[in-house]
Every structure is written in C-alpha cells, then in structure tokens.
C-alpha cells in the first residue's frame, strides 16, 4: 500500500491560513491504515486547525469530510456538494489523491496534508516499511523475493557492498542489509549457487527515468 506521513502542523497551517474557507478531506484507504490521512485523522486535523485559527484570531471556516479513495471518480459522488462549495481543499490523501482533486476542481486551491513516503507493508499496526519503488521491471524472481531496488541503499543488483555488517546496512543498525536477506533466502531455497550469476544491467526506461508511465487495457 501507499504510506504517507502528515506534514508538520506549522507547515500545514502556513499553507491554509490565508483562506476564508478550507475543507480537510480524508482518504480512507491506504493512508488510513497508517493512521495519517483517513477520515478520522481529517476530523482531528480540522479541530487542530480551528484551535490554531482561534488562537491567532483568524476567521476561517474549516470543514472536514472524506471518502474511501481520492484516486477514483465514483467515490467522489458522496462529497460532491462539499467539494464544490469549498474555497480550498486540504487533501489527506497521497500525492495521487491530491492531484486527482486538483484535476477535478480546476478553480479550487488544493494542498497536501501528507508527504507521500513510500510503497510499503504493514509490519505491525504501527510499523510500516518500504518494499517497492515501482521500477517497472520486477526482478524479485532472481533475488529470492527481496527487492534490492527499494531495500538496498545503493540499489545494488550484485550486492552486498563492503558495508554489510552482522546483517545490517552501513547506513543504520536499524536497517537490514537487503543483500544479507537475499543470501539468506537463496540459501533457504537451496539456490546459493545462483548468487554467482551476474544480474544484467537494468533497463531504467521502465522506471520514472522513461517519463510518466501509464497503460491502457485493450478492448476493455
């Protein structure tokens, strides 16, 4: 899923404080799982902004609302009136949702309440880790199901580097060395000899390097 983290409150306040009306708008799927951008969080953030406005003596009408997903048209039906009447929308979605709202409402100011941080998993209810960079050319089949693109700090296809120590990355003792994990998996699969196959040079044109990506279903 997409993981995001709320921006510092002061940064959010600076973005919205010049408006007469702002709608804090939740997205109740991915970013709700990481407790950052769901409809509940939108309600809390709206309250905090109202308090700040009162403290600073600024008159802003702050509403809140939300939908299940800000990246698909049908979900917007239930919030049509709210959004059409909004002067500004503080979207609690990932960058995709923020852009989707901006595209739908050309003359409405839209601001991101979150920093979209990564594509990751839910290790526990409170711990999320990066697992994919959507590079467009998956090699998990040759790396024992461990992604070096997203999990090795140097994105090495033929690691580990000389900084791998006791299973950890040289960047942080909190961070697993992705290549230690690759090797552990290859060994568990009885395929450690595959380690000596040199991974070919990557085609990065399928990554963001090739420009914005899209695809269409034929005959759908």
């Amino acid at each position: 899923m997409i993981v995001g983290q709320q921006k510092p409150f002061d940064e959010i306040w600076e973005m919205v404080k010049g408006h007469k009306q702002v709608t804090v708008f939740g997205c109740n799927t991915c970013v709700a799982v990481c407790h950052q951008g769901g409809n509940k969080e939108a309600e809390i953030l709206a309250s905090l902004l109202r308090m700040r406005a009162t403290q600073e003596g600024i008159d802003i009408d702050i509403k809140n609302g939300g939908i299940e997903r800000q990246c698909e048209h049908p979900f917007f039906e239930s919030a049509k009136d709210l959004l059409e009447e909004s002067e500004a929308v503080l979207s609690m979605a990932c960058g995709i949702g923020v852009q989707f709202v901006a595209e739908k409402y050309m003359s409405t100011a839209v601001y991101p309440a979150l920093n979209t941080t990564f594509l990751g998993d839910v290790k526990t209810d409170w711990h999320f880790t990066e697992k994919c960079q959507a590079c467009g050319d998956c090699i998990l089949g040759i790396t024992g199901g461990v992604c070096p693109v997203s999990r090795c700090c140097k994105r090495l296809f033929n690691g580990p580097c000389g900084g791998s120590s006791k299973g950890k990355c040289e960047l942080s003792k909190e961070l697993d060395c992705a290549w230690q994990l690759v090797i552990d998996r290859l060994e568990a699969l009885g395929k450690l000899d595959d380690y000596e196959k040199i991974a070919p040079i990557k085609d990065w044109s399928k990554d963001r390097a090739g420009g914005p990506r899209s695809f269409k279903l034929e005959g759908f």
Partner: protein
Amino acid sequence: MEIKTKSKLEKIFKSGAMAVTSECGPPRSSDPAHIIAKGHIIKNHVDAINITDNQTAVTRLCSLAACIHLKLEGLEPVLQMVVRDRNRIALQADILGAASFGINNILCLSGDHQSFGDHPKAQNVFDLDSMQLIQTVRHMCDEGKFLSGEEIKVPPNFFVGAAANPFADPFKIRVPRLAKKIAAGAQFIQTQCVYNLEKFELWMKGVVERGLHEQVFIMPGITPMRSVGMAKYMARAVPGMDVPEELIKRLSGVPKDKQAEEGITIAVESIQRLKECKGVSGFHVMAIEWEDKVPEIVERSGLYPRPVVD
C-alpha cells in the same frame, strides 16, 4: 604472460614481481598543487597511484582531472570510478576521456553512500553497480562497443581493477563475490584495509582453493594507524572494518608520541607476513593523509627498489 595493455601495473604483475600501489585523495580546491606534490613524494616507491573519486562522498577535485595532472608529471595513475554520481552515459564518457589522456588503469567501485558525505541531501545515481561497471569497461575495451551496442572507433584499453572486502558480512559469500568480480572482468583486486590477518588468510585460503588467485592479482590494503584513537575509531565507526582488540591493546601499550611509529611497524609486519600468503600479488598502501610515510613502509617491508619495466 601476455601483456594486454600499456599499464605499468600490469607489466609489474606479469613480470612476477610483487606490485605496490598507493592512493592520494584530491583536494577540496581548484588548486592541483597539493595532489601533484603528494604524487612526487611516493612516485619512486610505488608502481601506480590510485586517485580517489569523491571518497567518503565528500566533493573534491574530480578523479579524472587529478589523474591527468599526475599523468602529465609522468606518473602512473589508477582512475577510481564510483557509480554513485554518474549514469552510464557519463561513466562511458569519462572512460573515453581517461583513455584519451593515456590513463591505463581503472578501479571500479560502487562508492560510499552520500549520507556519509558533505551533501547528504544529494540524489544518488547507481544506474550501474560496481560489478556492471567492470563489465562495461571490459565491454568497451574488448568488444570496442558502447553499452548501446554501437561501435567505438578507437576503443580504450584499460587494466581493470575492483575492490574486495574480506571482512564484510556475510563471510560465506566473500569468495563467491570475488569470483563474480573476476567473471565480470576484473584483472586486479585491491582489498579493504587488512588488520585481522587471520581472517584475511582464511579468505585467501578459500580464494586459492578455487584457483581464483591464478585469474586475478590480489593486493591486500595496508593502512598504518596513526594513533590508538584512530584504531578505536575505525573499529567502532567505519563500516566493514575489522580491527582486532589485540591491535588496539598493542597501540595503547606505547606512549602517545610513539604510537604513530608503532602503527608503521605494525603495517610493515603485516606486509612481511602477507608476502608469504599464497595468492598475494602485491600491496595497496593507503596512508590516509600521511603519504610521506609510504616510502618508509615500502622500504622497511623489503619492497624497494621498485622493479623497472619497459
């Protein structure tokens, strides 16, 4: 053995003599005087001089320009090239540029992560990894082609090196990793600084068992400790460095003003011991910002005078 390039380092190895290299870090300045002076301090005691490429991810005068300065002084540089800062277009361009100045040696590295350097907010590139850079240089030299497949009218001709760290984890893939670098095309290997001699010898045993020492020239890295503080720092804070407790104890046992001298003696003893280690073909003496000690280390280790080759 057939000599394939104009590299002095290749000729020394293939003459059967132990080779000696050292390294110099370029200045954080546009003035090349400092690195030229360093080169002259060590030129008679080493066969080739590595020029580091923004080492520890700190921005410096570029490796290629520094190599050219040394080449113009008649010295033999080894161009260190990291894949952190440049994509395949820039790497291949610099390879051709280096060849155009008659630089004959290249060392292919991944590079320290930028978070350790002076621009931690920088983007990193890693379009290729170090293994693939070795392949790229060999492809350009041997096939006379760019990675795109297009022909290079006058191909470069490098003696290609790579790094190895026998002390990083997991240990069990450290020999296979060397084999992989050889398969990619590495012709010589310079290792991480060796302080744990037993572990290095254990790694070399694995290397010799697979006959890898007959396919590549291996140079253990030797870096003298200047003080017990340096030894403790390297043990604690430098990733992939193995500094045994006994070494720290030995340095602690001598007065502060004699520790540097003791550090030199330990380096000399390490070289003397590893000269006897089967598969060792030379030494890479990295006296970090202490280049003036290289001649003494080389002389005391019995590696001087350096052989003369055509």
